């Protein structure tokens, strides 16, 4: 089974004008890794979910996600956006963005990943560690540890 997140799926310190841009940057990485087959089709699915309810969480978090026929394997992408990008959270823009992609017809696994991640991101220590990570592999280690736990 492929790892949920790899260093190629981590973007540290990007500047973007809006949530669509950061989602597209991450989705391109997923596509390059062979995890997303149709970029625009996948992005349309993410947008549809985002329109249902914004995915911003308190504490500077955005978790765009979807189940999509254009996804081959459950995947997490991560982007750090120091100046923030709006994901509709009540307390302001997101600096930590996780893109969660799940194949259509998969089990409940991606919901467990999503729930675990959303809950762990409440903890300031986890957010601080993500903010302080020096390189993509540090993020992979941090996330793998928290989501597997």
């Amino acid at each position, binding site marked *: 089974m492929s790892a949920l997140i790899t260093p190629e799926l981590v973007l540290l310190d990007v500047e973007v004008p809006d949530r669509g841009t950061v989602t597209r940057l991450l989705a391109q990485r997923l596509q390059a890794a062979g995890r997303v087959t149709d970029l625009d089709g996948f992005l349309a699915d993410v947008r549809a979910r985002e329109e249902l309810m914004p995915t911003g969480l308190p504490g500077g978090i955005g978790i765009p996600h979807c189940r999509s026929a254009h996804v081959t394997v459950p995947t997490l992408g991560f982007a750090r956006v120091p100046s923030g990008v709006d994901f509709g959270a009540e307390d302001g823009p997101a600096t930590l963005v996780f893109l969660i992609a799940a194949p259509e017809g998969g089990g*409940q696994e991606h919901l467990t990943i999503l729930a675990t991640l*959303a809950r762990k991101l*409440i903890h300031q220590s986890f957010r601080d560690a993500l903010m302080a990570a020096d390189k993509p592999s540090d993020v992979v280690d941090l996330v793998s540890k928290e989501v597997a736990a």
Partner: protein
Amino acid sequence: MIVTLTPNPSLDRTLQLAHLVRGGVNRAEGSRIDPGGKGVNVSRALARHGVKTVSVLPLGGPDGNVLADLLAAAGVEVRRVPVNGNTRTNITVAEPDGTTTKLNEPGPLLSVGEVADLATAVLEIADPGRWVVACGSVPLGVGHDFYAGLIGPLHARGARVAVDSSGDALRAVLAGGPRGDVPDLVKPNLEELSEAVGRPLHTLGEVVDAAGDLLSRGVGAVLASLGADGAVLVTADGARYGSARVDHPRSTVGAGDALLAGYLCEVAESPAADPDGDPRTPPDVRALSAALAWGAAATGLPGSRMPTPDDVAVIAVTLHDGIDPGHRLQAPPR
């Protein structure tokens, strides 16, 4: 980890409208959807505090999928019990003058097999020492004795049981299941407590007496939420009363659920002694304080939004040294 059971969850859609015209075409100016249901709210509040929680839900149809997704994004794990019917949508029409109109679906009719699946799902994750919280009304097809019948099997697995319900379901729970098992905790509001003991309650003294009646039936603890008056916790160790001030109340929707979540978070998740606190502070006092703070924080937030640790931290809680039995309670807001 805390398990919640919501037999009749909903997808709550709020439509903002300038002015609702009955019989006319009304165009909404904005809308939002939220997961709905008392147990669902308890889980959402816990997850907002980083507490692991699993919400056991009968889900069916496209709205069932949406509900599961929204809960996951809120940090709540869902133990899904697939049902043939469709998960219900409740609609609230909110007008700028504060008028709200609610249109609630009854929810799906569960088959005998689906009700059995729901019970099995709860029992499967009820490990020793774990709290299982059964909340809200029961849907069509589910007997009023559903919660009452779960208590014995849950206790047999070593789980602790809390019930937050009303009417016939609460009465059945308090009457004891087939083996006479009653919950470790019940969280009635004033109206539900009054209904449970069959007499009106106007004062704190009457509330404490009513809670005492429930304890005499074997209930472990009664956490009675009294709206703006605060809350009373009655256990074998005695009765405690506290209140919390909210400067700008916005919505009492879900406040009782947040209160219950705060209590459970303290009794289930905190280490035996708080290293920063006074080691002599009894667990009851800490749990009541948490309940009051979470509940009050929720009333300061719009809709059914659940409080974060930051929202809770700013709430000033007062625990009263004694209980004035003659203290008259405010009538619950209508």
